């Protein structure tokens, strides 16, 4: 009896560790940006290229920054949730279009000059929004992905919850499911809006 007790305990511990470890999502990398001020950028707006958007424009409000792109498949998955959120006007939603052209593997960037990149990206992004619905108060165009790097974007879609003081309070990587929205994001929005 005693002879088998310790190996048995060891085995149970190993199984428990594996059960926990293997069920963790390796994509869930904790962002060091949570609790830090949202990195600054100033990027042209979709549909109004002469106007720019900067996160500091949103100071005093709780808002969501959603990183998306027309080539991103999971963005389509979360889109209905975002459209629903925009309809209810619970929280302002700003879009950050991430590498509309350069991120799309199907586009040969050698054949696109900078001027036509802007035009093409606008067309594609606007086309996608008119097809699937536009939940964004506005979308900033991050053509080269520089702003994305400052935000630690590594897999679109990503969503940041930013408080009134401009501090990132939450980051969600991957599509927002209705559960995540109502269970994780909404309660925090309510708390921060107080």
């Amino acid at each position, binding site marked *: 009896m005693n002879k088998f007790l310790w190996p048995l305990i060891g085995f149970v511990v190993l199984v428990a560790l594996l059960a926990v470890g293997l069920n963790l999502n*390796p994509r869930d*990398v*904790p*962002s*060091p*940006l949570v609790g830090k001020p949202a990195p600054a950028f100033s990027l042209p707006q979709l549909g109004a290229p002469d106007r720019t958007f900067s996160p500091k424009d949103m100071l005093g409000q709780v808002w969501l920054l959603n990183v998306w792109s027309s080539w991103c498949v999971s963005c389509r998955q979360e889109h209905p949730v975002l459209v629903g959120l925009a309809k209810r006007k619970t929280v302002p939603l700003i879009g950050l279009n991430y*590498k509309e052209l*350069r*991120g799309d*593997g199907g586009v040969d960037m050698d054949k696109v000059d900078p001027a036509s990149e802007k035009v093409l990206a606008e067309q594609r992004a606007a086309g996608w929004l008119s097809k699937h619905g536009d939940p964004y108060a506005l979308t900033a165009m991050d053509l*080269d*992905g520089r702003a994305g*790097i*400052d*935000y*630690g974007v*590594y*897999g679109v879609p990503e969503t940041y919850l930013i408080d009134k003081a401009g501090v990132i309070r939450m980051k969600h990587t991957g599509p927002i499911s209705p559960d995540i929205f109502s269970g994780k994001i909404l309660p925090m929005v309510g708390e921060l809006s107080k």
Partner: protein
Amino acid sequence: MKRWLTIFALALGALQPGGLQAKEAAPRAENELTEKRLIAISSELRCLVCQNESLAGSNAELAQDLRREIRSLINDNKSDSEIMEFMVSRYGDFVRYRPPLKGTTLLLWFGPALLFAVALVALVRYLRRRDKALKDAPLSAEEQRQADDLLQAKKGQP
């Protein structure tokens, strides 16, 4: 036969100067130092898209962007630790293949040594106990008789 032809064709290709490596991005001579540093730094960093590849080896879109970013930081005369800091402040300690030594990583760093020490102590204790058990167990009268019989039988054999 077909296999030999393939091997022959491959060998022929290898003989051509630069034939097979034509697509490999060779470090440009004028900033060889930059490229060397870029490779050294990016080998220490994890590509977040394909997590088991280093930033140096990954072909993912993001990895290319980040290498470009690191290259420009090198050209701005930033030190290696400043560049590391740039990456860690955006993507967290997770991007480093060698996580820093701090409270939350103590177990990660010393866990294996700890496990080894525990195993070593257990082994020593087990061996001692066994040794003692062997020494302290004299044969019973019956066992002694059996042993003598066996030894006798052995002697009787040619």
